[in-house]
């Protein structure tokens, strides 16, 4: 399959009053054409920073690219100027944000917001743009689109606004859509509708999607591959089946254990992961999950494990993969 995006050893930091905060600490992954990849992790693990750095949308300063490459269609985004980025943003790569209540301009009509980017990229006339806006609202199933394009965001419900955001992001038919927690701020029933909509549009238009989420439930339905991030590092990646059926990293297992399932026995307790992720202002030298991991070994404290391959698509970074680790620890459920 053809690679659309390839991130190589990306590190992004923030300069703050307390010193450098290393939000992303050398991650590598790729996204193929037409594929949906999920980046999963707790809040503060660096997944949003990763998403924003693909669009060069981080405020710089305080943020800066420390090292690494983001190759999009073979070209390095890290090296692009602001002008070059403007030709990519909203054109080849689009983004949907977490909170639809705040991510639309309250003083601009919705129709205008949808086609604003497209008008610039494709030099449309006003009437063409209006037609396109109506078409897009139809695509995302907003009723009465002719009327709706002339309204302001506050006249829309949260779910409807997120539909508008999707229309806004998809209007230029981008190669890559980055969805940063697109359903977190929505009601559960609306969440499912929005996810279905995204899947449907993806099938129609063939867009690749990076789905950023902390919700594994969302991942199973929607994605091809999963990347598990923790404290600015990738701990495990694999296909949805590999991650769900055969998780290798204790963190992934814990994450899966903390998702309620319908087929769960009532007597089974729902896991929550004790403790909080480490502060990235002084990131730990060894495995970042060390102090929350109940399989932690002495070596984990000061040494970061390397990437071990379990199949062509399945990798994890854990000392348990090492031949000297006790084999009985592996694979056992708690």
């Amino acid at each position, binding site marked *: 399959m053809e690679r659309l995006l390839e991130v190589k050893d990306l590190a992004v930091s923030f300069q703050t009053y307390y010193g450098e905060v290393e939000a992303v600490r050398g991650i590598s992954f790729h996204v193929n054409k037409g594929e949906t990849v999920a980046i999963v992790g707790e809040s503060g693990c660096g997944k949003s920073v990763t998403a924003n750095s693909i669009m060069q949308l981080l405020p710089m300063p305080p943020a800066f690219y420390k090292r690494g490459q983001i190759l999009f269609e073979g070209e390095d985004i890290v090296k692009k100027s602001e002008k070059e980025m403007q030709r990519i943003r909203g054109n080849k790569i689009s983004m949907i944000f977490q909170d639809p209540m705040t991510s639309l301009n309250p003083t601009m009509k919705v129709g205008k917001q949808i086609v604003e980017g497209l008008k610039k990229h494709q030099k449309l006339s006003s009437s063409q743009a209006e037609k396109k806006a109506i078409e897009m609202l139809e695509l995302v199933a907003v009723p009465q689109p002719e009327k709706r394009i002339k309204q302001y965001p506050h006249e829309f419900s949260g779910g409807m606004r997120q539909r508008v955001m999707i229309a806004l992001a998809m209007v230029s038919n981008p190669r890559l859509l980055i969805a940063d927690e697109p359903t977190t701020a929505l009601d559960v029933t609306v969440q499912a509708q929005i996810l279905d909509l995204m899947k449907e549009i993806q099938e129609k238009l063939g867009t690749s999607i990076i789905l950023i989420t902390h919700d594994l439930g969302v991942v199973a339905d929607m994605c091809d591959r999963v990347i598990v991030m923790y404290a600015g590092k990738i701990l495990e990646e694999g296909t949805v089946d590999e991650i769900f059926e055969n998780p290798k990293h204790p963190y992934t297992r814990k994450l899966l254990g903390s998702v309620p399932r319908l087929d769960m026995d009532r007597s089974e307790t729902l896991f929550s992961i004790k403790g909080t992720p480490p502060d990235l202002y002084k990131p730990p030298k060894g495995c970042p999950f060390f102090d929350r991991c109940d399989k*932690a070994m*002495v070596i984990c404290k000061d040494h970061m494990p390397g990437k071990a391959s379990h199949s062509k698509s399945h990798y994890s970074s854990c000392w348990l993969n*090492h031949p000297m680790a006790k084999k009985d620890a592996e694979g056992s459920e708690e």
Partner: protein
Amino acid sequence: MDSNTIYTKEMFQKAPRELRESETIKRPSISYWSDVWRRLKLNKLAMAGLVILIILGIMSIIGPYMSDFSYYEQDYSAINLRPNKSYWFGTDELGRDLFSRVWLGTRYSLFIGIAAALIDFGIGVIYGGIAGMASKRVDAIMMRIAEVIYSIPYMLIVVLISVVFSSTGAGTSMFVLILAMTITGWVPMANLVRGQVLQLKESEYSMASESLGASKSWILKKHIIPNTLGPILVNVTLTIPRAIFSEATLSFMSLGLQAPRPSLGTLVSDGLAVMPIGLFYQILIPAIIISLVMFSFNVLGDGLRDALDPRLRK
């Protein structure tokens, strides 16, 4: 994975508990007020304002005693003298020592400003507090009244009151001036206090604290006071220069403090009268001081507001 690491069996032993708990490196936690103070200290402009205010405050207390001449003593053999060795700031038309007059004027101006701010604060806290705690109906009525009072053009009423209470050309008493300043000034404070009271009555974090078993006094101390005190402090800091400015404007319309008592406003206004005959120093010194006072309070108020805003916490 370092290539030169030698793996030993011990390294793959289960990590003992102590090792894991030692891993808690956290950024230093800083208490609210010391954090506010730290951020305020970083703001050079605000600190400059604070230092200037302290110096002006001290001078307004000791300044009048430093000169050999009193503020009201008229010496017709020494009128309109430029600053010199015995009269450090020179003398005015009546031969009065400007050094003691300027510092005494600073004292009165500061006093008027601070008193007005404190009265605004007092009325505002009481009115706003009552409105916030009262029933919805009473609250609505009280706020409507406040709204009407606030839309009364402040200076017009101040001028009217001063006109009424001053006999021709003789200036106004300090009490009337302060009263006039506070007539509408308390409304923003009342709004602020009411808003905070309402918000805190309902807010999630005081509910959260309560559900965690916190006592009422603990909530008051830990949440309500820090959250309310900040905006109030900023408001007070910004009310003082406004009152000083209003008094100066009144002085300019001959409605200021009663002669021979000086305020910075009356001094500037006296200075303006002799400016056409080339005695620029008489207006320059009080003008600089009043500008410094206004500057200091404004930058300090701004600095406080920024320091208190948790969103700006770096």
